[in-house]
């Protein structure tokens, strides 16, 4: 965890001090180095939730449920970061805080689904039922995402198209690409560290809240 925090601190320093300004967008473009890596971590965590949900329904292993719960909370936090940094960038660049653009919809939507997952977990006290129901929701949510994603590409979008992960060569200049990669790794690392920390915390949280519910 300490290493992850150090990595994030290092990335932020690099973003602020060592990366050149982009020609058209100026300082606001630097939010990109936080916004996109946070989105990547959020998606990764959501993937963990989906995978662990399937594993739970198949194997009924309590640890996969704990991991799904931790990953869902971390994903929620990172998606919130994406949804906050996005409008902060958008205001100076697009002159609007929010546009009902398809990719924004997808992210907002994932935020709602993750929130629904966490509310569902909060509404059930028995561990086994909670694990089962969350796993069902997790699997269905995983099925839902491609549908939303499809609608993203059915209309033309205002949101910047991918400039790194695309078939042709990345169109970022060298220093920016390096910063981006450093920031991505730092955030991914941080995300994994947060999930692990939360996972270790789960038994303590459950015993204090449930008072030993079987």
């Amino acid at each position, binding site marked *: 965890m300490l290493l992850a925090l150090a990595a994030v601190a290092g990335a932020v320093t690099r973003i602020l001090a060592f990366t050149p300004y982009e020609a058209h967008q100026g300082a606001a473009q630097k939010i990109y180095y936080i916004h996109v890596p946070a989105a990547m971590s959020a998606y990764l965590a959501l993937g963990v939730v989906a995978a662990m949900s399937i594993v739970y329904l198949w194997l009924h292993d309590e640890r996969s449920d704990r991991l799904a719960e931790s990953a869902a909370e971390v994903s929620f936090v990172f998606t919130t970061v994406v949804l906050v940094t996005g409008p902060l960038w958008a205001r100076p660049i697009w002159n609007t805080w929010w546009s009902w653009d398809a990719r924004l919809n997808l992210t907002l939507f994932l935020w709602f689904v993750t929130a*629904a997952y966490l*509310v*569902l977990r909060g509404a059930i006290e028995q561990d086994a039922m909670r694990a*089962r*129901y969350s796993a*069902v929701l997790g699997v269905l949510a995983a*099925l*839902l995402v491609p549908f939303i994603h499809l609608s993203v590409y059915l209309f033309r979008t205002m949101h910047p198209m991918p400039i790194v992960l695309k078939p042709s060569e990345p169109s970022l200049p060298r220093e920016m690409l390096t910063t981006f990669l450093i920031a991505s790794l730092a955030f991914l690392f941080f995300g994994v560290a947060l999930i692990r920390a939360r996972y270790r915390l789960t038994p303590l949280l459950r015993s204090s809240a449930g008072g030993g519910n079987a």
Partner: protein
Amino acid sequence: MQASPPSLLSAAWIIARKDLAVELRTRSAFLSVLVFTLLGLATFYFAWDPSAVAAVDLAPGVLWVTFTFAGLLGLHRSFGMEAQDRAIDALLVAPVEREAIYLGKALANFVFVGTVLCAALPALVLFYNLPPAPALAALAPIALLAAIGLVSVGTLFSSMAVNTRLAELLLPMLSLPFFVPIVMASSQASTRLLAGRPLAEAMPWIKILIAFDLVFVVACTVAFPYTLEE
């Protein structure tokens, strides 16, 4: 002589008939959902400035939003009725597959929603001044596809929500994210068709609706047994 247990589809049909018979006797849920739908359609009309947006542009959006919330009202009672006196246990003990319970309830909900739509669509045509024949021809098939998606997801979440503390809050929270693709695809398709665009323009959205229905009917049928208490 012992009769063999019913097959999946006939069991589903029996359960659907039971639910519909219960509903037919009291008609309370049906009437409240119907009134809610009509009120919704009318309220949106009052809330909007007719010089700003043409009625034909507003109508599809209003229809799908009202349809979604009205559907939620109806869905809650689907498993809510079984919670009284633990009636669900009788279903669980019966020699029918768990999936048949889900399919039966989903079918009953579909008939319920379809009947409400039979009143809501003409009301929409009336309130928003749509040309009756083309509008109904465009909206009815889309409404049917949307209804299939709505009831498949909603029935599953109804069975989950009814077992939790926050049942009435949880059902909308769980279901609405899943209704979004339905609403999006239906609105996009019906807006285009009502504006007189060719069918080919609306086809991508209709295909999304069909795909959604196929995927989620199967997925929810498979997932349903996990939501029943052991």
